[in-house]
């Protein structure tokens, strides 16, 4: 295929852009400084389209499309912002706040949390759905890390980074619907996991304070992600 056939031109919010055919709407938007909220997508990991925050409108499609999994197409007309999209995004973020127990004021990630950030970005000043207040566990059996299920939003990033980058596949999901939760190995305490290499990647991709390093107090857990593109690059090189 020629290089030019591989390039698509299309519009986002009425402006023209071009990108390689395999790029997603979200990637192109990001490169061009257009903000689209996201929680499950993370550069360097595979995409799952699970959080539904990155939904955009595409002319000619009667469905909203998750921009993290939708590749650009020639002539596509994308709208990343509308009253309707805003409303849905707020609704989704609010649902996440009701699902588990987010007490930002005492959270290790206060001030560095992607969920918290989005709540402000989307101008959410209160949650208008009823809170669930479920009983959720905290597993502190690992020597260096803790998982606090109260703050997990099931974005699946830990599962993917552990499987795709570290190659350990310590994490997975069990249970259905509202009872779904992430587990280590065969749902055993993290500290007893045979597969965990204690690399800490899951901790650093986690968008919230669900995964954190021991010894961090309120607002002290900042996540470091620079390893991701780097590792991706190395892998790419190796695979030729």
């Amino acid at each position: 295929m020629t290089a030019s056939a591989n390039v698509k031109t299309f519009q986002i919010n009425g402006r023209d852009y071009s990108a390689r055919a395999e790029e997603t709407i979200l990637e192109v938007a990001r490169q061009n400084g257009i903000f689209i909220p996201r929680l499950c997508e993370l550069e360097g990991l595979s995409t799952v389209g699970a959080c539904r925050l990155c939904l955009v409108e595409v002319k000619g499609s009667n469905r909203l499309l998750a921009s993290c999994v939708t590749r650009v197409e020639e002539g596509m007309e994308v709208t990343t912002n509308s009253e309707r999209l805003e409303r849905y995004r707020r609704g989704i973020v609010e649902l996440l706040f009701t699902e588990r127990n987010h007490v930002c004021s005492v959270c290790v990630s206060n001030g560095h949390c992607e969920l918290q950030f989005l709540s402000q970005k989307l101008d959410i000043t209160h949650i208008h759905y009823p809170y669930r207040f479920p009983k959720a566990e905290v597993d502190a059996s690992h020597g260096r890390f803790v998982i606090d299920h109260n703050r997990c939003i099931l974005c699946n990033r830990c599962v993917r980074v552990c499987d795709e980058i570290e190659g350990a596949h310590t994490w997975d999901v069990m249970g259905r619907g509202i009872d779904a939760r992430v587990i280590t190995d065969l749902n055993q305490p993290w500290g007893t996991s045979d597969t965990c290499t204690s690399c800490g990647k899951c901790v650093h991709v986690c968008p919230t304070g669900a995964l954190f390093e021991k010894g961090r107090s309120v607002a002290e857990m900042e996540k470091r992600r620079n390893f991701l593109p780097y590792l991706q690059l190395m892998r790419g090189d190796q695979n030729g």
Partner: protein
Amino acid sequence: MTREELEQIANTERQSQASTAQKLNVCVAAGCLSCQSQTVKEVLEKGVARRGLGERCAVKGVGCMGLCSEGALVSVDQNILYKRVLPADATDMLDALEAGRPPVERLVCPTNTPFFQRQKKIVLENSGVIDPERIEEYIAACGYTALVEALTELTPAEVIEQVTRSGLRGRGGAGYPTGLKWSTVAKAVGTQKFVICNADEGDPGAFMDRSVLESDPHRVLEGMLIAAYAVGASEGYIYVRAEYPLAIKRLKIAIRQAEKLGLLGSNICGTRFNFRVDLRLGAGAFVCGEETALIASIEGKRGAPRPRPPYPAMEGLLGEPTLINNVETFANIPPILRNGGEWFAAIGTEKSKGTKVFALAGRVQNTGLVEVPMGITLREMVFQIGGGVPDGKNFKAVQTGGPSGGCLPAECLDMPVDYESLARAGSIMGSGGMIIMDETSCMVDVAKYFMDFCMTESCGKCVPCRVGTYQMHRLLETITQLQAAPKDLALLEELCDLVKHTSLCGLGQSAPNPVLSTLRYFAEEYKAHIERNQCVAGVCGQEVHV
């Protein structure tokens, strides 16, 4: 296997069938089996042997006869139908038979009723007629002739042409044009292609697919084989739920028999066409019926849907082009090829062709499995075929499409049953569940029941469905406990909109339908619950102490 060899098997079988003058067919599908039909069959067999009637009288087990609520069913020579037969009734039946007397009156089930007369059987043509565990009987009923003809006389493109012309649409729920799907897979490029039969059948109360598999498994195999030839696939899977042990058993028998006759395997019918079929058992998650979740499950992964596109037709099992169709869709294929696409297209309505099998349940006289031409009205379904609402009660609503569908009120009764009309009215065709409700059902309570189902069956992958179904269910609970405020109704409507438009897969996207349709047609009931703390049906509010 050549056409001549097939013909020979058919003739031998027909002759042997003709040699016995009288045929006692005992239904041995799951419904009647639960009414001791196996014992009935054994007692009849022993009785025939003891009386030395073996020469003129054959007892055999057959598939579903449809009127499951009246089992065990036994038919004599296809014209007398006995209902509610118990093992103890065998003596009377055989006495009448032996003496050439009229049938045993107390057991006779009239068949000149609309329940039987209004049906049109294509998918179920062999159900209740042939022994599902004998390939010879299927062949004697013209089985596998469509396959042999397709392989030896038609190109794949010509096969697809017939299917397209028939106007057949997927029977798994969404009604996607089957011919179009086949041609997409046929054109897709891959190192290998797959055909998958979706026999997960997860809708509560639906048992159309189970019945077809238990009654006529070869029909589905033949449909799959033809599909595989048409799209260029060499491997196939039947994904069937583990709760269907009898269907699984009969499928296994059918596969073995077909392999033995060279109808499955390598160089089928002496051509270069190869096809292998394997069974995969589903563990009973509703969401695993969704095609991408089903494929993940076959791949050994967690059964969770993924965003489409790419559609399975382009990137399916193991990333290869994959054709996935429902059991009933495949079951329609052999007759379409035998009789031609036009024949099929002549049945039904403009956009919904052929027949549809429904599982009729709830507050009607006759419950069970029926096959009717598309376009029949809901009224005919409920009052003629279903025999109307029993106990002098009034009809209130008919629910179609299961947890993804909606409840339609009396105003909709004259609407034709086809994909478009049902969708316009706020419900869906779905896989064919049809539940009739009378005045004793509370529509809010019904909506809550289906929401409970969706909430429990949500895979939990995407936020709107995982948390939204929980929140909607909670609100419905508050309403049915007669403790809701008007703002709760506003929240419920808002959540319906959110979940419908933002969920990842069809489960979440359609989970609000039962609420939306009851809000549309029975808004007054919601209002009564909320504003006057009143449930007209008298279902809600009472504390149940166990």
